[in-house]
């Protein structure tokens, strides 16, 4: 099983090694000290940027989907109204199923799909193994990975970031500096994940979506997460922590952009956007449609009240005279 995973991961490790080495070469060419932690640290950040940039098309696709979400709001609200106040698991499941069926029927889907994360995780493992293997490669106990030869490995391994080596972990750290740098990175990592999650929950969710047991569970987990990071983070080399932190910053910025420009319907962020647009005197997207819909609904309601008026014979109508038109029918003129 171990061998199977090794051979499965090797091509990815190789790719990770080449991207990192390529960035390192580039940074050295523009004048950074090849043995510095800055050059190697920036190479890790470069790897993140390459990976996340490769996924921008997916991000754009999601933005387009969220635009289309605005158009199916009436149908979505119908489903939400139907299940309003029903919090038993069977109702929630039925509601999710109906919502998903609607997405498919309308040809839009706000979710990004599971494949990207599955594609990303081997790269994370690949990086973990490259950084974890640096010491072994520099000592000759491990085979070199592509461009990361024994010499390159020992240079990268001894590169220091604020005095801590990139391959150092909190567990087994020899210097206080290493401990401080790892703790700092773990705190930053937890803070970015927490902020991203909190931003999503407090700003980009309609109030109706927040008032159910799942949202409450989600909220609890949001607070437990930093503890999980602290426990697992102490086992990761500084390079991996740096990678993780950079990815988090990217996700946070991306989400900030989406929430600001294309907030979820009915959320606090949408209200804020509409207020901003109103202040600048710009049209509010979807407002015209909403007004038209409301007008159509009012018309429909009026139609119903009109039908309720009993038909009158010519004689009776004449008798009642002008001014006695039923009050309800008058409302329809508005």
């Amino acid at each position, binding site marked *: 099983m171990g061998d199977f995973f090794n051979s499965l991961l090797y091509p990815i490790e190789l790719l990770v090694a080449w991207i990192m080495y390529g960035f390192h070469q580039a940074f050295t060419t523009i004048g950074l000290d090849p043995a510095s932690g800055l050059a190697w640290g920036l190479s890790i950040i470069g790897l993140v940027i390459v990976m996340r940039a490769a996924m921008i098309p997916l991000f754009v696709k999601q933005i387009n989907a969220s635009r289309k979400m605005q158009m199916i709001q009436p149908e979505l609200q119908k489903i939400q109204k139907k299940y309003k106040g029903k919090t038993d698991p069977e109702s929630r*499941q*039925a509601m999710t199923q109906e919502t998903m069926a609607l997405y498919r029927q309308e040809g839009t889907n706000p979710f990004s799909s599971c494949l990207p994360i599955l594609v990303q995780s081997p790269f994370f493992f690949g990086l973990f193994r490259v950084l974890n293997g640096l010491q072994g490669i520099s000592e000759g106990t491990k085979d070199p990975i592509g461009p990361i030869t024994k010499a390159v490995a020992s240079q990268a391994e001894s590169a220091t970031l604020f005095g801590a080596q990139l391959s150092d972990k909190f567990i087994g750290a020899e210097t206080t500096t290493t401990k401080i740098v790892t703790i700092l990175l773990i705190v930053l990592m937890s803070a970015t994940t927490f902020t991203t999650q909190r931003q999503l929950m407090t700003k980009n969710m309609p109030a109706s979506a927040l008032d159910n047991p799942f949202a409450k*569970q989600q909220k609890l987990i949001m607070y437990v997460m930093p503890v999980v990071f602290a426990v697992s983070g102490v086992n990761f080399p500084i390079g991996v922590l740096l990678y993780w932190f950079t990815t988090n910053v990217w996700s946070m910025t991306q989400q900030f952009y989406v929430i600001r420009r294309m907030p979820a319907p009915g959320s606090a962020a949408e209200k804020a956007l509409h207020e901003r647009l109103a202040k600048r005197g710009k049209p509010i997207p979807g407002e015209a449609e909403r007004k038209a819909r409301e007008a159509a609904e009012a018309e429909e309601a009026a139609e119903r009240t009109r039908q309720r008026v009993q038909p009158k014979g010519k004689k009776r109508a004449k008798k009642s005279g002008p001014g006695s038109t039923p009050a309800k029918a008058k409302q329809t003129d508005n």
Partner: protein
Amino acid sequence: MSVGQVAAKPLVWLVRAYQLVLSPMRPATCRYYPSCSAYAVTALTRYGLLRGTWLTIRRLGRCNPWSPGGVDHVPALPGHPDDADLVARHIPHETTT
């Protein structure tokens, strides 16, 4: 319980661990109902290690940015009612979110 179903148990625990620990840390991503992990749990418990894994791999392949997503349940065992039906009629069943 068949041999295949017993053999699938460790994998089911692994997916459950993912659902409990990793999944809550990330935003919702799945384009389907039930989600890929819930599908995996049902597929593995219903069809055992080999067919369950195969069904899960195929579902993960389907859950890509170009697929429309929607409702996609694990095939029902012969003679058993369809999961979509049970969910629509609010009948408790093994599928989780």
